[in-house]
């Protein structure tokens, strides 16, 4: 069912993504609050790297992870400790820290050999709590629950300091991650992943090594998330266990699902959608509401966010990507479209 997406030549999706990402160049001359947009976009970029990896795991392979913020935390804390306390150069830490997260991925993935479905989701959620505890217990390096200051990263003598520096750094790797994710998805590995998702028994019968590929999926996913963690730590300059709570993991899964499962572009679009909705549109919309209604409770923001999500899922269960597909087919068949398809 999902492969159908690839057959459609959907060049509009990458164009839209590029537009959103390049928007700061356009608006920086128009308004000085572009910095706020840029900042939100940087967060989205970091999350994109993570959700591409999560899509390979949950979308392609069908292994649900409700503890992905833990990988982000592992990458972030590893890099912060390696760079600031062991004096390892930042670009080396960009290789080592994701590998550490990837190794944790293997640990996370181990139960997946026996546990499936929602049970696996809950197991990974448990791992999320365990990692948080582990970080607090290693307080000699991590300063416990109080959080850790992180230095500004230096690449080849250049200190990355401003929002624009962060933007180039993050989106260089985000684009790399998208390309890599699509390559993996189309390769032999990706096809094995999808075979496992569609039917473990059928995959096994077609000589797909289940254990190997499941572990591989967790490892790759851990790599991506760990890398996102490195960027997270060094562009945020402060990390604490509160940054990586369980709700964030659930948000990640929502991002992948909103975009449409098992399409890398879908995951990217979903991430942009949720991050911009939550951090940009809803606060701005709320400012606007306050002009007209003098409300005292702050729950309007949550309510708007929840309602948008809810209506979106009810009317677009296939995700943003599915919405695009429908529209494309609509115009292709216009004016002979069967009505039922577009309700």
């Amino acid at each position, binding site marked *: 069912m999902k492969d159908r997406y690839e057959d459609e030549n959907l060049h509009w999706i990458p164009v839209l993504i590029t537009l959103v990402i390049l928007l700061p160049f356009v608006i920086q001359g*128009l308004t000085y*609050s572009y*910095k706020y*947009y840029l900042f939100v976009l940087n967060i989205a970029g970091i999350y994109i790297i993570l959700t591409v990896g999560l899509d390979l795991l949950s979308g392609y392979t069908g292994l649900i992870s409700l503890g992905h913020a833990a990988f982000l935390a592992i990458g972030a804390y590893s890099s912060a400790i390696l760079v600031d306390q062991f004096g390892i150069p930042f670009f080396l830490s960009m290789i080592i820290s994701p590998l550490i997260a990837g190794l944790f991925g293997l640990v996370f993935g181990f139960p997946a050999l026996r546990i499936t479905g929602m049970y696996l989701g809950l197991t990974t959620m448990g791992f999320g709590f365990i990692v948080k505890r582990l970080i607090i217990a290693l307080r000699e390096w991590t300063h416990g629950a109080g959080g850790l200051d992180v230095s500004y990263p230096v690449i080849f003598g250049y200190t990355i300091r401003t929002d624009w520096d962060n933007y180039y750094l993050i989106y260089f790797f985000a684009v790399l991650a998208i390309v890599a994710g699509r390559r993996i998805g189309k390769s032999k590995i990706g096809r094995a992943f999808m075979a496992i998702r569609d039917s473990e028994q059928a995959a096994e019968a077609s000589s797909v090594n289940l254990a190997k590929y499941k572990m591989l999926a967790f490892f790759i996913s851990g790599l991506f998330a760990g890398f996102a963690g490195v960027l997270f730590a060094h562009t*945020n300059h402060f990390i604490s266990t509160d940054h990586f709570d369980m709700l964030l993991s659930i948000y990640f899964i929502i991002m992948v699902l909103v975009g449409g499962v098992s399409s890398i572009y879908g995951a990217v679009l979903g991430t942009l959608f949720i991050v911009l909705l939550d951090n940009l549109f809803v606060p701005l919309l709320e400012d606007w509401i306050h002009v007209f209604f003098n409300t005292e409770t702050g729950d309007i923001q949550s309510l708007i966010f929840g309602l948008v999500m809810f209506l979106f899922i009810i009317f677009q269960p296939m995700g943003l990507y599915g919405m695009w597909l429908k529209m494309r087919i609509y115009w292709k068949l216009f004016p002979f479209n069967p009505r039922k398809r577009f309700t």
Partner: protein
Amino acid sequence: MKKMTGLLISILLLLTACGKQAPAPGVTDTEILIGNIQDLSGPMKELGAVLPAGSNLYFRHVNEQGGVHGRQIKMIVEDHQYNPQKAVTSAKKLIEKDQVFCLYHVIGTSPCEALRPLLAETGTPLIAPATQSGTMSDMSRPASDLIFHTDTGYDKQTRILVDHILSEDANAKIGVIYQDDDYGENVLKGAAEVEQATGTSIQKEAYQRGATDFAGQVGNLIKGGVNHVIIAGVVKEPIIVMKTAAAMGFSPQFYGTSPTMDHRVALAAGPAGEGFIAANFANLWNSDAPGAVEYRELCAKYEVPEAYMGMYHFYGFITAKVLVEGLERAGKNPTRKRLVNGLETLNKWDSGAFPPITYSSSDHAGTESVVLVQVKEGVQTVISDWVD
């Protein structure tokens, strides 16, 4: 496609709608813009409603008197849901889009800590962060020259409480029930310091945020033969602990750190909460301190609903006084630098509610002492002067 284009255009419009560079950010001839980030829809949202209301009460009063150097104070409140990442995003919005003059009364330890890099980068001061964590006035951390803490830290509160217990009863066996996060860590830091200084040993029992059952911790305190218990919780925890202890026939003297000062502790704990002593970093809102009297007068004048009146509303009120004093001292043409310099001239300044506040370029802790408040026949009564 059309929808998406529409969205893009609306982003553009929204972002361009708000731009006109002012000389000093947030300051015009008639107005000073202040940014506040509260938890409006997360676990502490109760405070998110009450704290800014208290601040606004004082701002309204000041504005009606003509404002600060002729400028009206206006406060924008954002929501961070007690999430440090969202706190930074909100601060970015306030600083870059709304162009606030300074941040004020941001709630929560980890949200405030997460703001440090942004504060340092933009040079935005943060006045009176709404957390009693002692780490806020740690001068070795980034942006510490821009953060002005008004409250006595949890570590100092713990030390003061233990000293108080030992002065009453030299052979006291002390136990602490603490929340297992950054709050608890700060409490434990104070406990470790006082253990080293006095040679007593304190029994420590942890609980998790959101815990509903304390039978295990109370049982351990009974086994440890403890007769003085410090509860480093928020509002629910002291109530449940004291009720559980009463049910199990365990009746030590209970103490609490400043967040347990809420009047509902006495209300909900009933007879089990009788005699509970809490440390507070400021005078009681219903006491005779001049700040409290002024507060009650203004509450009556502006018809504040009764549900809002209480320690947290008052807390918002008195920190607003500190901010306004800083703005006064920043002079007729305030800049962020002048605000910092102005606050650093405060020397044993009496706000009428806080202990005397002193800032200098090497010390932004503000206050070092607490007042002890005991529940007597269901009513909170001040039983001490400033203790430090």
